[in-house]
């Protein structure tokens, strides 16, 4: 028997680590991965609340988040490939101009 609040605290830990990694990391791929980590943390709290209220809608929400995350990963990685092709770097500090 585990309190639901434990799951929510675990979700808060994962979200905070993802937020810290998002701000600290300089590699564009790692920044993108920390966004995925934050999405996963929120998904965990959705599933915990779905269990708490015995509602299916929370899990449906997680399903849609997964679909959108898959689409986001495909487009985002394509953008990263395009950035690397034009600038030859993955460091976000060197990608600060809209136009070359």
């Amino acid at each position, binding site marked *: *028997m*585990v*309190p*639901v*609040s*434990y*799951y*929510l*605290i*675990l979700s*808060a*830990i*994962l979200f*905070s*680590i993802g*937020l*810290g*990694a998002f*701000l*600290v*990391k*300089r*590699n564009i*791929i*790692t920044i993108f*991965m*920390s966004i*995925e*980590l934050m999405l*996963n943390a929120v998904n965990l709290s959705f*599933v915990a609340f*779905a*269990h*708490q209220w*015995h509602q299916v809608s929370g*899990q*449906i929400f*997680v*399903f*849609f988040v*997964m*679909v*959108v*995350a*898959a*689409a*986001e*990963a*495909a*487009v985002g*990685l*394509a953008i*990263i*490939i*395009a950035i*690397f092709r034009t600038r030859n770097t*993955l*460091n*976000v*500090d060197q990608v600060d101009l809209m136009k070359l």
Partner: protein
Amino acid sequence: MYLVLFFIFGGLCVAGALNLLLQRHPINSALSLIVVMSSLAVLYLLLGAEFLAAAQVIVYAGAIMVLFTFVIMLLNAGKEERTHGSKAAYIVGFPGAAALFALLAFIFLQNSGHLGQVRLGEYLVTTGDLSRVLFKNLLLPFEVTSVLILIAILGAVALARKEH
């Protein structure tokens, strides 16, 4: 027993996430993210979401992370170098994230009496339950996401294509 399982896989989650933060090479970060996602799938199973556990392994730990590792290897990404901008991020980023965590943990612990307990096998959502809601009440959003996926595929191909 249930508490032990929760702490094992919750600890794996936190360890993987911390490893993602501390590693400097993107491929190590990607592999630790796979650990986080796989142990989250086990936590979903403990919460009675069997379809989501399977989808987590297949979609997240499988498809999305393969895409990530593929791009890392394709671009031959090396170790990240420290630059001038990252010092300010260290100063602002870690206290900000810690403050957010402290706030959330305070709220959750304060209201933990109102939240219930999770017992294993008490509430199980089968794939049938999920699909009944998804294909009866939420058919339009489901079809719209299929259009979204199609547009994402076209966008990815158009963006990653070599220009002549």
